C-alpha cells in the first residue's frame, strides 16, 4: 500500500460520529517551519535559516528546483557549477530565478585547495587540478579525505589571479571560455 491510495479517502457515512475523528483524518499535513536559532539582517533581508547544497542526489548534478521551492531557506550556498565543471556553470538567469524567491545566494569557492575538473584544469581527465608544468609548484599534497582535491600554495600570485583580480589568467591555465578572467568573475560579474 502506498500513501497516495489512502490520502483523503473518506468512507465514514456508515460509521458512528465518534469514528469520524479518526477515519476522516487521512491527511496530508504540510511541513511546519519554526526554526530555532537567531536571525540576522544581510543585504536588507532577514536570514533565519540557511542551506549548504553542493551536489544533487547521489552526487549527481546540482538541481536548483528544490531550493527554488523551499520556503524555509533565506540564504543558500551552492556550487557555482552544477557539476563543478566550467561547462556546468549556472547561468545568470538560473541564479536570478533562485534569487527571485527572495533568497540570498552565495557561490561556493574553495581557495585553500584546488579541485581537479574546475575551469582552471587543463586536463579534466587526469587527477591533478593543474596538469601544466607551470602549475606543479602551486599544488600541494592531495587531501586524503577528498580525492581529487589538493592543498594549494595559495600565496602564489598565479593562484590568487585565478581566484580574483584585474590581471588576466596565466596563459597556461586551461579554460574553454574565451576572455575569462578569474574564479570570482562568474560569481560577481553580473551587475557590477
Amino acid at each position: 500500500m502506498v500513501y497516495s491510495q489512502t490520502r483523503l479517502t473518506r468512507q465514514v457515512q456508515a460509521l458512528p460520529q465518534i469514528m469520524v475523528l479518526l477515519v476522516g483524518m487521512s491527511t496530508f499535513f504540510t511541513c511546519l517551519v519554526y526554526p530555532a536559532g537567531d536571525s540576522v539582517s544581510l543585504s536588507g533581508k532577514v536570514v533565519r535559516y540557511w542551506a549548504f547544497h553542493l551536489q544533487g542526489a547521489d552526487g549527481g548534478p546540482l538541481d536548483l528546483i528544490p531550493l527554488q521551492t523551499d520556503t524555509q531557506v533565506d540564504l543558500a550556498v551552492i556550487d557555482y557549477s552544477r557539476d563543478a565543471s566550467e561547462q556546468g556553470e549556472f547561468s545568470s538567469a538560473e541564479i536570478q530565478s533562485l534569487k527571485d524567491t527572495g533568497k540570498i545566494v552565495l557561490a561556493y569557492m574553495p581557495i585553500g585547495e584546488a579541485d581537479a575538473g574546475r575551469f582552471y584544469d587543463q586536463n579534466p581527465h587526469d587527477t591533478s587540478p593543474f596538469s601544466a608544468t607551470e602549475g606543479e609548484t602551486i599544488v600541494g599534497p592531495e587531501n586524503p579525505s577528498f580525492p581529487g582535491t589538493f592543498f594549494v600554495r595559495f600565496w602564489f600570485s598565479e593562484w590568487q589571479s585565478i581566484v580574483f583580480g584585474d590581471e588576466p589568467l596565466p596563459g597556461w591555465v586551461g579554460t574553454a571560455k574565451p576572455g575569462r578572467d578569474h574564479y570570482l568573475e562568474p560569481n560577481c560579474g553580473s551587475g557590477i
Partner: protein
Amino acid sequence: MGAGFDGTYLDDIDGYQQFNLDGDGTRPSAALEMILFIQQLSSWVKAQKPDFLVFPQNAEGVYQDALENLDENGDLRLDASDPFITVVNGVVFLDVDDDEAFSDGDISLASMDTNNDGALSGAEIANVYFNSIDGLGAEDCFFKGNGEEDNPFVDTLGSGDPRIIDFKFTGDAYLDFAAHNVPIFNVEYLTNENVLGLQQYCEVLSDQFSFTNLEITTEDGSPGLTNAELRSLTFIPFRAPSRDLTQLSTLSCGTGHRLYFAQFGNGQGLTSEIVLTNPSATDMVSGEIDFFDDEGLSLSVGIAGTGVTTRVDFSVLPLGAVTISTDGQGEVAVGAAVVSSEGPLGGVVRFSISGIGIAGVPASQLLSGFLAPVRRQSGGINTGIAIYNAASQAVTLNLTLQDVQGTPVSNGETNIEDFPAGGHLAQFLGGAGEVLFPDANTEDFQGTLVVQVTGGSVAAAALELGTQAGEFTTLPVTPLE
C-alpha cells in the same frame, strides 16, 4: 557571463595549516598570508560591488595563528624583532626568505598596519580579518567527533574528553566574531534517523538552553563558553543529513519547544481541550497553538471564549496550567494542533464526545519506531492509530501486526512508502472503510502493532474506540528498543 551571485563562500581556509608550523612548516606565515589573501579578495570585490558578501568557512582561529605562528618573542605583536618580519621606512613587510632585509618576493603588510606604527598587533590582524568578512560558515560547532555524521553532542561528552577543549577554544573564537558583528552560519551533519541529535540541536539553539556538562562552562585557566555567552552568539542554523551536501533539509524546532497533537477535532458535540502545564518554578512560558486541516492549511476552529480562529496565543504561569477548549459547535472539523513555545511545557489533549465519554491523549514524542497494544471486536471495540510525520522529508513506514505472543499475523503487514513531510495518517486496525490491515483477520483480535520508520521520525497516538458509552480510552505508544 556573470551569474549574479550575492556573495561567495570561501572554503578550505584552514588549508594554511598544511604549510604552517602545524603542517609541513614550509610557510610559517601561511595563516597571516591567508588573512592577507582574504583581505585583498574582499577589498577587490567590494570595490566593484559593495554589498557583495564574503563568508569564510571554519578556521576559526586563523587570526590567532597569524600572530602566534610568527610572534617568536611572545610580545603579542609582529615587528622587526620577529622572524619573517622586516620593516623598511616604517612599512611592515613579510620577509619571506627571512634574510632580515627587504628583497624581491617580500610582501607588504602595510594594509594590515592600520595605525602605521611599523608593527602588527593581534587586534590589528583580527580587525583586518573581521572587517573583510560578512559571516562565518562553521561546521560541527556542537557535535564533535571523527564521524561524517551523527557525532555526539558536546554536552554529553565525558570528563576529560579533548573534544570539550576543542569546543571551548572554538567557542571562545566565536565570541570574537560576535564582538565584530560577524554572524555564524552553523551546519551540523545529523541524519534523519538521529532523533536525539536533532532534538539536541534544537535545544542548543534555544535561548533557554544551558549546558549540563560543567566542564564546558567552567573557565579553569582555559577559554570557556558560559551559558550566557552561548546565548549571546548569533547562530543561523542548517542541518544536513549528509556531509556530501546532496540533500536539502529543513529544521523544525519550534520557537524553542514544540508539542505535537496529531489528533484534534471539534463540532457536533465533539470538543477538544488542550491542557498545557509549565514545569518551571520561575519563568512564565508563552507560545501559540496552530490548528491545521487535513490538507495542512490553517484550520478555523471555534475556541471557547475566543471565537473562530486558526491560532491561539497563550501564557502559562510558573508551575501553572492553561486550558484551551474548542466550543463543540458547528460541523465536525478535524485536523491537528501544534504547540510552539519559548520554554518546555507538558501537554495533553482531552477529547470529549457526547454520549461516549472522555479520553486524554498526551502530546506525542518523536519516534523512529514504536509499539502499541491493539484489539478489535467485530461491531464493537476497534483501535485507531494516528501517525504524524514530524520530519521535513518523506519517510517510509512499516507496520506489522503481532498476536499477543509476538507472532506476526497473516496479511498483517503494511508498507507506506513516501509518507510525505508533515503527512498524517489516521486509520483503524480493521473493519469497514480504509483500514490498516484489510486482509488480516481481526474479527476478534488482540495483539500489538509495531511501526518502524525509515528516513525520519514521527509522532503517534493510539485510541481504542467503541460505540457504547465509556468505550473510549488512550493506549500507550512505546518507543522500540
